[in-house]
């Protein structure tokens, strides 16, 4: 019986971990990750949204994404948190959970690597937020600082 319990626990643990990871975790953004994201989204229109816990206007845009995410399966949005701080870890999770965006790909800047992470995304971006990158299906993109108009988001991410 003990053997059976142990065996089942061994089976369950990786799945429990994996499920938790998918729903609540964020991944450290690296150059390789960014290249991978872009490569995998080639041929599709998608949005990369950068946000911070220190940016009240960012929540307007997260709120819009939440609404779209409820309506639309496979919403092509990648979220990147720019805090670059371990101190904000809980807040980041709270916010993503509050807006129910756990099912979207979530990335974050490595601790104390804010400038480095910003630079690999866009050397001409100075950290103002929210920052949205609209990617065309051919991989080209254009960016906008500040909250994006809802109609633009809807038309860009529309099915």
């Amino acid at each position: 019986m003990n053997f059976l319990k142990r065996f089942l626990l061994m089976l369950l643990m990786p799945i429990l971990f994996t499920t938790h990871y998918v729903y609540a975790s964020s991944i450290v953004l690296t150059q390789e990750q960014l290249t991978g994201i872009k490569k995998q989204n080639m041929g599709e229109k998608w949005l990369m949204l950068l946000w911070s816990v220190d940016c009240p206007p960012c929540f307007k845009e997260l709120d819009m994404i939440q609404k779209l995410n409820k309506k639309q399966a496979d919403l092509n949005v990648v979220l990147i948190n720019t805090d670059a701080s371990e101190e904000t870890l809980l807040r980041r999770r709270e916010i993503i959970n509050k807006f129910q965006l756990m099912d979207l790909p979530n990335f974050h800047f490595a601790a104390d690597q804010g400038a480095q992470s910003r630079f690999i995304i866009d050397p001409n971006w100075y950290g103002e937020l929210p920052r949205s990158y609209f990617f065309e299906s051919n991989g080209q993109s254009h960016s906008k600082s500040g909250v994006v108009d809802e109609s633009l988001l809807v038309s860009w991410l529309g099915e």
Partner: protein
Amino acid sequence: MHTSNPLLLSCIGCLLILLMASTNVKAAHKHHIMQATTKDATTCMQNEITCAKTVTTAFAPNSDLWRLWALKGHMYFQVSKDKGVTFSSVRQVNVEKEKISARNENRPKIAFDQYQGVYLSWVMPKEKRYTADVRFSYSKDYGKTFTVPVTVNNDGLDIGHSFNEMRVTDEGEVSMVWLDSRLAHQRRLEGKQTNGSALYFGEANYRKKQFTFSNQQLANNTCVCCRIALDTNTQGELAILWRHIYLDNIREFALLTLTQNESPPLKPVQISHDHWKIDGCPHQGGAISIDQNNRYHMVWFNQGDLGKGIFYASSDDQGESLTKPIGVGMQSAQAAHPHINTLGSKVDIVWTQFNGIKHQLWHQGSNDYGKSFTDAKLLATSSEGADRPFIIKNDGKSFVSWHRLQQGHWVQAL
């Protein structure tokens, strides 16, 4: 035989549910392949300055250089008697632990009077998102003991009060400014549209037993995420520079001098005209320094249609008219976070740049009250993160203070 076991049945059920759930998760469709690293950098467990995200420095009237930082709910300080070459051992500010904002534009503030008084102010985030109080504590014995902290904002509301800046006179008159969202809160309750925060001003004097800070609104519709800048003019009046919201989210710098003989209404003047339209957070405040001739010298950062990068300008009439702004630093090299200070005819400006690998600290100086500037000079680099740089002065010399994350705090005479 085993399938009749209730434990086994329930576990198999769980397995199936979890497997189904995991395959239905949208995030799984593309990005599992990239989920390689989730751990952040090493957690810093010490109270040393190298662990801090921000450092605040100031000279005391006896020329001691103090540096202050916050970690895990406590503030710590060290004192240097040789202008930053060596420092005393680390001492903890002996007040109860509480949350302290110390990141990017936010940091505790320190000031002194001429009677061994040390004054601290900081922002304490509260449980609810975007709520915080401005806090204050005073030491009458040069940092040995501190008073129980008090809240500066007097509205008692669970809303935002942040980005505190403080000045203290030799006689202990404390002036505080901060961004306060009580007006926006009230308007939202009334169902009215609102944008930004409000600029508030408070005074107290612990030496004269005036323990309660006054609270006065100076301006409305300020940007909510940029630091405020302060200096005192030759008449002893406070000059305040902040990022304001004009019209439809045009974020420009505004200046207000709290003149002694003028009653409200207060009239801020617009300083920058770069037309940065953004419904968002620039996270970059400006800086101001007033010279012995009462000329106001200012630096700021914008990314507007009409002006991008760091700009410097000065004014002889408290901002009513301005010299033509000149660009500072290399816009293409991420020039940002400027600070300025004046000393006699000297005007010093520092800022940071980033070349993709290293953070750089740059300096440009003027010896003729800002009419002309020397070429920009690289002062220092940082391989990890970098705090904002600041210029402080003492005994006829200016010093630059720059904290480099994980490397340590750096002070050098300019």
